C-alpha cells in the first residue's frame, strides 16, 4: 500500500502543506482531506511543497483541479513548490504550469501571496 502523508505548517496567513511519499488513486483522498481542512479553517492561501513527494499519478493531480476554482473564487490560490524533477514532469505533461504557479522554493511561493493584491 502506498505511503503518503500531509504535514501542516502556517507561515503568517499562508497554510503550507508538505506532501511526503506517493500520491496515487489510493492516497489522493488524504490530500483532498487536507484541502478540505484548509477550507473549513477558511484558509485560502495554500502552498503545497513536494520536496519529499516521490510519485504522483493523475488521481493526485485531479485533487488540485477539483479545488482550484473554488479557492480562487474566495480570493486565494494553491501554489506549488519544490517538486522533484520526475514529479514536475507529470505536472508538465498535463499542462499544469499554464494553470498553476509552480516555483522552485517554498519561500518564492509564500512571497507571491504577499505580492498579490488581497481581494
Amino acid at each position: 500500500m502506498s505511503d503518503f502523508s500531509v504535514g501542516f505548517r502556517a507561515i503568517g496567513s499562508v497554510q503550507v502543506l508538505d506532501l511526503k511519499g506517493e500520491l496515487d488513486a489510493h492516497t489522493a483522498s488524504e490530500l483532498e482531506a487536507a484541502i478540505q481542512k484548509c477550507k473549513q479553517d477558511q484558509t485560502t492561501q495554500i502552498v503545497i511543497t513536494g520536496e519529499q513527494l516521490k510519485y504522483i499519478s493523475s488521481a493526485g493531480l485531479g485533487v488540485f483541479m477539483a479545488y482550484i476554482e473554488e479557492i480562487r473564487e474566495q480570493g486565494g490560490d494553491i501554489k506549488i513548490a519544490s517538486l522533484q524533477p520526475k514529479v514536475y514532469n507529470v505536472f508538465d505533461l498535463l499542462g499544469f504550469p499554464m494553470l498553476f504557479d509552480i516555483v522552485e522554493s517554498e519561500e518564492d511561493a509564500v512571497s507571491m501571496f504577499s505580492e498579490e493584491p488581497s481581494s
Partner: protein
Amino acid sequence: MSIPAVARSTHYLSIPSSTRYLEDVRRFVAHHAQQASFPDAAVEQFKIAVDEACTNVIKHAYKGESAHQIDISVVVEPDRFTIRIQDEGVSFVPSEYREPDLMAIAKQRRKGGFGVHIMRRLMDQVEYLKHGPINEVRLTKYRPLNGKA
C-alpha cells in the same frame, strides 16, 4: 547496433481490483524495467502508465468494486517493453474518448479524465484488445536502436 542483450521473458502479477495494490503494480513493473536495463526516466514512465491503466480498470471497468481481479503481465523483448493489463469488467470504448481540456476540467471542478492522455503521452503504443470476456490494455515502449530508451 548497441541494443542490450535482453532475452525474451514474461512476468505475471495478479491483484484484487483495489487501489491499495497500485504500489505493488508499480514496483513489479519498475523491477522488470530495471532488470531490462531501461533508464530511470523510462522506468518512471512505465510506473505511471501502468498505474493509470489499473486505476481506470478499478474505477471504470469494475466501478470501484474490489472483489474482482486484474492480471498484469510484463513482456520483455530485445526491442520493446510491453505491459498487458487484463480485466473482465466493462469495456473501455476508445472511439468515445475525448482528449481532456485542462481549463474546462478546472471550471467544472472535476478530478479526472487524464489517465488515457497520460498513457498515450508516455508510451509509444496504447492498444485496447478484447479476447471474449477479457479486456486488455496493452502498453508498449520500443527501445531505440542506439539503446537509449
